[in-house]
Structures are given as structure tokens and as C-alpha cells.
């Protein structure tokens, strides 16, 4: 009764608000909020200089650079190709389009460990794809490039799935009007279509970036995990945990959590922008 008296904005005949919200809040606290707060509270066991030392040690900084750089690059590649794939799926009909459309979600459905060992096998020097790259002097597996490949794989559906519905809803009158007024096809794409897609494209980019930052399973197989070179930040957390350095692991985790929260807020803002543009 307490919840419905204090929180409800207006009276309703529907029952069950206290039960539903009470259950939601209880479960949310037990599963998510209390354990997450543990990460922040446990870092207070470290003094400030200790905390700064831990999260700025050279090996950790090298892992930030790799994780951020590769995530950014992978999200950029996914933004370009995701837009292209969404465009082709919505605007063009070709043999097998429905199968392709369904398979775009494969990285969501395929467990990361499976993706990890498969990509490693493919891009190793004797793998199906790696054997063509090896003579060119390109090594993918067990290098930072491998990290980028795995991140691209797991981030692939995000941009496609955020841009696709906007493209489907787009009225063809806009393009017809542009063409009638003398715009070339390229002009109507860059000046009419692209601005409409921008918020969704940015949202997809941010989602892919956020996913790549935290990714672990698919990367550790292909990365080779050499300290300073191909070691991602989530792996460092695990390494510290295995050395029973809980405070150190938690300190790095807190840095990552803060970054994820900033990204989450940015994504929420972008989604609100998309909805506003759509007039919903």
C-alpha cells in the first residue's frame, strides 16, 4: 500500500501495483543493485593513491588503449557496413534475402566461446581466411587485429537492427520530392535520407561500441593475450582475481563500470533523440 500511496501519479482501478513494483524493486536490488554497489564499496578499501596506481599502471593503461581503440574501430566498421546491410535488406530484393535477414542476428544468438574458437580457427595462419592473408604479411589471430575482428563480429547486428526499422518507415515521398526538385540520387541520399538515419546510426554505433568494450568470451581465444600488446581490460580483471588481488580487480572494474554508465546515458539520450525525430 505504501508504494501506491507515495508513487502513483493518478488513481486507477487496476490492482497489483504494489505487488508488481515491490517484486520488481526487490529483485532489482538483490540481483543488480546490491552486488554492483559492492564493487564501488570494496574499492574504498584502497587509499586514493593506491587506487590511482592500480588503474594507471602501464599494463592496465595498455589494455585500455587496446580495448578502446579496437572497440572504436570495430564500431566504426559496423556503422559503415551495418548501414549498407540495412540498406540492402530494406531497399533491394535478392535471392536469399530473408535468410540473410534472419542470420544477421547470429552474433546475438551464438555463444561467445563458440564465436571465439571459430574465428581463431578461421583467421589462424593455416585457417580458411588466414591462409590468404598470411602471404600478404597480415597476421590476425593472436594479434590486436584479432581483437578487432572478434569485436566486429559481436557488434555486427546492432547498427543493422537500429537503422533497419527507420529505413522501413521512411516515406518514399521524401526521395521523390527531392528527385522532382532536381536532386541527384547521391544528393538525396546525403541531404535527405542520411540526416534522418543519423540518430539511429549513432545509437547503433554506441551500442556496438559498448558491447565491444565489455566483451570477453569471443576475444580471449583469438587475442593471444600478450601483456602490453593484446591483453584486453576484462581479461586483466580476471588475471587479478586469479592472483587473489580482489582490490586491484575491483579498482579496474570500477573504472570500466563508470565508462559503461556514461555510455549508457549517452545511448539513452540518443534513443530519445531518435524517437523525437520519428515524431513518436
Amino acid at each position, binding site marked *: 500500500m505504501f508504494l501506491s500511496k507515495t508513487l502513483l501519479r493518478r488513481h486507477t482501478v487496476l490492482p497489483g501495483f504494489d505487488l508488481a*513494483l515491490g517484486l*520488481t524493486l526487490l529483485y532489482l536490488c538483490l540481483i543488480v543493485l546490491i*552486488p554492483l554497489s559492492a564493487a564501488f564499496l570494496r574499492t574504498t578499501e584502497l587509499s586514493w593513491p593506491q587506487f590511482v596506481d592500480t588503474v594507471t599502471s602501464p599494463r592496465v593503461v595498455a589494455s585500455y588503449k587496446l580495448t578502446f581503440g579496437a572497440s572504436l574501430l570495430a564500431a566504426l566498421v559496423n556503422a559503415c557496413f551495418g548501414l549498407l546491410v540495412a540498406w540492402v535488406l530494406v531497399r533491394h530484393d535478392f535471392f536469399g534475402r530473408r535468410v540473410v535477414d534472419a542470420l544477421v542476428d547470429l*552474433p546475438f544468438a551464438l*555463444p561467445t566461446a563458440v564465436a571465439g574458437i571459430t574465428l581463431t580457427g578461421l583467421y589462424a595462419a593455416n585457417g580458411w581466411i588466414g591462409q590468404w592473408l598470411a602471404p600478404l604479411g597480415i597476421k590476425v589471430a593472436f594479434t590486436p587485429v584479432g581483437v578487432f575482428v572478434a569485436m566486429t563480429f559481436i557488434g555486427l547486428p546492432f547498427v543493422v537492427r537500429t537503422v533497419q526499422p527507420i529505413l522501413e518507415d521512411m516515406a518514399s515521398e521524401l526521395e521523390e520530392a527531392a528527385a*522532382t526538385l532536381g536532386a541527384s540520387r547521391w544528393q538525396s541520399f546525403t541531404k535527405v535520407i542520411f540526416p534522418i538515419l543519423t540518430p539511429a546510426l549513432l545509437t547503433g554505433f554506441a551500442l556496438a561500441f559498448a558491447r565491444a568494450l565489455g566483451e570477453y568470451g569471443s576475444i580471449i581465444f583469438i587475442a593471444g593475450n600478450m601483456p602490453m600488446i593484446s591483453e584486453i581490460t576484462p581479461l586483466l580483471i580476471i588475471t587479478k582475481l586469479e592472483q587473489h588481488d580482489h582490490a586491484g580487480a575491483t579498482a579496474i572494474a570500477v573504472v570500466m563500470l563508470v565508462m559503461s554508465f556514461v555510455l549508457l546515458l549517452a545511448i539513452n539520450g540518443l534513443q530519445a533523440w531518435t524517437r523525437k525525430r520519428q515524431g513518436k
Partner: protein
Amino acid sequence: MQAVSQTVNAVVPHRPIAPPDVAGATTEPAWVRRLLIGVALVFLSLFLFVPLVAVFFEAFKKGWDVYLAAVTDPDAVSAIWLTLTAAAIAVPLNLVFGVAAAWAIAKFDFHGKSVLLTLIDLPFSVSPVIAGLIYVLVFGLQGWFGAWLIDNDHKVIFAIPGIVLATIFVTFPFVARELIPLMQAQGQEQEEAACVLGASGWQTFWKVTLPNVKWGLLYGVILCNARAMGEFGAVSVVSGHIRGQTNTLPLHIEILYNEYQFAAAFAVASLLASLALVTLVLKYAVERRVQQQLSQAKDTGASA
């Protein structure tokens, strides 16, 4: 109208005008179209189709016998059981939570709703490794409840409860985030009508709300289950990797792979890849029904 156009035609000398190139205005020339489709398909092949084929190819490379031996190995069987158990606990719990959260958020107007929505999405933006770590911090040996758990002879970390908790965390938002938009679009008029006509709250839920959202619910459960069975990072942190006891299928793949038993690793991986394919087929089939329910809700909402 006809008379006017006839007079116009009579006055203005008839000059043939090329019909407007409607197709050219809204689509690309054929060569551009082929190029775009080609590039998209090459990209998708490299990153999606080839890996998918490769899993099954590698799994059966050494023949049926090796494959069967790998998937019927006692350690593999116990990993399958643990994976199924964890999903069987995590998915129903998240289902109940998702329904409760969606009921509260979609059917009522209350303070702090947007904050609650953001908090529900929170687990998606947390790295799986951190999801595992936070439970170690709470239930591990050096954790908040560590000493109490040892005194009372309970084990959470490096045991099945930890694996279940980590699985629940990473699959937390799936059902809720599918149901909330659907139930918001449907509004609360139907439920209000049922209540006014004398139905109890539970009757309203079972007979009015649930039939309206069943496909969305199923969709959320499919996604939730796929992630629950495939989770690696979070489970890896809390499992302790005890063979035959705390190894889920994805962890079993890692162990086999690190022992250079590639054929066996890919054989077990092919089980999970098949699960992923089944998930995609189900998802594709259910997705349309969800869209139907959603557009139905929007239509009735617009006419009301």
C-alpha cells in the same frame, strides 16, 4: 474537371513530356545496386556465414565417431546438464520479474519510472566479467557474506548457485524489455474494462493481458534462454572450472580447446551453434506475430 482539361489541351499545343522517372528517383542504377548487394554479402559472408559453416565443418572433420565420443563424454554430459539446469532456473525467474516489471511500468503512471527503466537495462551495459566479479565480492571467500557462508557450510562461488546468479544477472533485462514496449502500446483500457465488469486482478491478468502479450513473452524467453545457455564470461569468473561439477557447456569448450582437443571442442561447440540456429528460426517465426500484436495495439489505440 474534364471540360477544363479538354480546353487546356485545346489551347496548349500538345507536346510530349517524358514520363517522370519515378524508379530512378527512389532507387539506384542497376550497377550500383549490384555493387551494394555484392559488398554487403561479401562482408556478411566473411563475418557470419563462413564462421557458421566452419563450426560444423571442424566438428565433423574427424568423423562421426570422434563427434559422438566428444558429446557423450561424461564431462560433456554433466556440462550439458549444468547448462540446462542454470537456464531452467534463470529463465523462469527473469520471466516472472519481466512480467511484474512490465505490469507496473506499462499499466501505471508513477514517479521514477524512467529511472527504473534505465536500471532494468543496466545489466546489458555491464561487462560479463564484472557481472561475475560482483558476486565474488559479495559471496566469495573475502566477500561480504564469505565468512558466514563458510560457517554455515554453504557454497555460492565455485558452485552451482554462483553460476545461476551470474546467469540471472546477464539475462536480467531480456523479458522485461520485450514486454514493456508491447504492453505500453496496448494501454490499459481493456484491463480497466475487465476490472470494472467485476474480474479480479488475477483473472484480468490471465484472461486479458496474457493473451495479448503471449508472443512478446515468448520472444523474450527465446532470447533470454539463448543467452543463458551460451553465457561465458560471467560464468567463467564464478565457476572455478571444476570438471564434471561446475563446468557449463561454454566452459567445457574452453577447456577442450586449451588442451588442443580441437575436434572435441568444435563438436561440443556445434551443439551450441545448433541451439543458436534454432533460436534464430524461432525468433524469426515469433517476431512477425509480435509485430502483428504491436501494430494491432497501435491501430486500436489510434481509433479509440
